[in-house]
């Protein structure tokens, strides 16, 4: 069996998994309107407080030699190492890093690139160099594997971790997903007219687009029963599939996501507690998901999106949302799909409209992204 284990979330809503779960269960929203250093305009984003980062820097060796993403990644990975007690120099332990843009802020020639980056080698904009930087910090035996597969990166990295452990290549895989807010991504999504100027409303009839967010989240995946933690939850199955339809728009009929779901659903689907959907709050994405869930017969399974709390955290999203779903199952409580009020999709699915207690022992996490990619995984209590 392959288990989900110790984990961490660093986000706009806190620096530990516990803080984050408490925040969402109290309906706190990390998305806020604010000015960002590179623009006079206000953006609705989920930003990690600079002051909070400052407070944690003393925990990092030579903190000023790391980029923001590296600082957050070090804090997140260190927290999981501390909790689990696993030795990062162990030859059976791999780190998989999931990101869309890594240290993309290094590329900016702007004054925004303050003297914080004086000590940073600009080569670390290359993801393998970034990965080697983390390897040397934690003295990992293996060079980390970097996965960059758009918005499915996080959940796909967890699926890949499971596959490598099942293959016998590793016993423990640390999966860390991270992306920061940057002018690069904000201007790009804005050029697509994909940004919402208000807190986003996944699956709602009045949704207009996404909020970007930043986060780093880490989870240990392991074959060691003694590390299974109180979740006592295994990864049953996972799959990815491509729509083969359009590079920047999902299939209208949800083909790729449907294909993933048919591959992971091998048991009585009525046992599934809920689906943590991708739910970006773009008109096309949420509509596509409703159709795919409907086609897969998941009509009565409650659905939420965590994007209303965190915005879209890109390469972190799949990891962060899996960790929150594990917490949700541990507490036997469904978390409201923040921002949802009125049905805004054509598929016959059931949204989670308020926090509620529920006895359940499994959940599904899904994601879809640019390049036509989709992924889904099924998690279940042992």
């Amino acid at each position, binding site marked *: 069996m392959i288990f989900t284990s110790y984990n961490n979330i660093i986000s706009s809503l806190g620096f530990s998994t516990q803080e984050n779960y408490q925040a969402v269960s109290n309906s706190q929203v990390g998305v806020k309107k604010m000015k960002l250093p590179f623009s006079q305009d206000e953006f609705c984003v989920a930003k990690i407080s600079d002051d909070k980062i400052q407070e944690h820097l003393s925990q990092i060796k030579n903190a000023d030699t790391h980029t923001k993403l590296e600082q957050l990644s070090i804090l997140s990975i260190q927290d999981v190492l501390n909790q689990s007690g696993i030795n990062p120099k162990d030859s059976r332990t791999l780190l998989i890093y999931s990101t869309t843009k890594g240290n993309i802020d290094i590329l900016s020639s702007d004054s925004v690139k303050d003297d914080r980056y004086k000590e940073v080698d600009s080569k670390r904009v290359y993801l*393998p160099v970034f990965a080697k930087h983390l390897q040397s910090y934690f003295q990992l035996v293996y060079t980390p594997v970097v996965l960059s597969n758009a918005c499915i990166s996080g959940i796909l990295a967890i699926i890949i971790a499971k596959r490598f452990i099942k293959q016998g290549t590793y016993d423990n895989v640390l999966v860390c997903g991270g992306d920061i807010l940057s002018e690069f991504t904000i201007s790009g999504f804005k050029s697509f007219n994909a940004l919402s100027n208000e807190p986003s409303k996944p699956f709602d009839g009045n949704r207009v687009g996404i909020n970007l967010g930043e986060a780093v989240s880490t989870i240990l995946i392991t074959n060691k029963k003694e590390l299974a933690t109180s979740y006592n939850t295994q990864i049953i199955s996972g799959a990815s599939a491509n729509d083969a339809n359009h590079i920047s728009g999902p299939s209208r009929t949800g083909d790729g996501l449907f294909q993933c779901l048919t591959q992971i659903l091998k048991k009585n689907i009525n046992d599934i507690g809920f689906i943590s959907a991708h739910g970006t709050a773009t008109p096309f994405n949420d509509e596509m998901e409703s159709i795919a869930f409907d086609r897969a017969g998941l009509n009565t399974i409650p659905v939420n999106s965590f994007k209303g709390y965190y915005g879209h955290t890109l390469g972190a999203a799949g990891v962060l949302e899996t960790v929150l779903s594990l917490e949700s199952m541990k507490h036997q409580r469904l978390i409201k799909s923040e921002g949802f009020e009125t049905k805004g999709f054509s598929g016959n699915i059931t949204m989670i409209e308020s926090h509620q207690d529920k006895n359940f022992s499994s959940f599904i996490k899904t994601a879809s992204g640019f390049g036509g990619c989709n992924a889904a995984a099924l998690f279940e209590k042992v």
Partner: protein
Amino acid sequence: MSNITSYAHIKHNQVSVNGEIVFHSNSSLTLIEFLSEAYKNLGISYPKFHKMDAQCKLGFLCAEFALKGTNFLTENNLSKTAIVLSNCASSLETDRVHQHSIDDKSNYFPSPAVFVYTLPNITIGELAIKHKITGENAFFVSEQLDADLLVNYTETLFQRNTKTAIVGWVEVDVANFEAFIFLTENTENINKSSIFKSLNQTSVTTIYNQTIWTH
């Protein structure tokens, strides 16, 4: 049993298929000029090609050369065909173009047609669309071609639902470019043809180093 059934390699303005150079252009051509010449050499018409960024064009052409003359697309279930690609620079070449469009506030022109290519897995998406391949996807970013990673991961896919895969390396970074793509099939039919090699780290490294480039 898994076999490598065909492979193509593009480097130094040359294209090799199964180890033999099949096309070369003047070495003074830029990447974009070379890609255009290689596209003409294939004799195909695919209007979407002209919208792609250089990395997608390179990956697209390399896959076309590897597929040409094979039955890979007609004999296999393309919902069970995976695409696993890798490189070092992710999408940095196009990232720089997008960054340039936002660096100057008085000349600010970010474009969705550029931004969509700032993800490396778009190359996978373009291959999937062209050939209607709907199986597993993964894009890994490593310092150099990592035969261990690509073979180990493809083997995990073959243990599950995947029957065939398109695997390789597609890199564009400033003046440097290289693509290397092989087709692999998990099958009982062991063909004795000389280009069929069993899928393992050694054979991937061997075919990657096989081509003798002419300049």
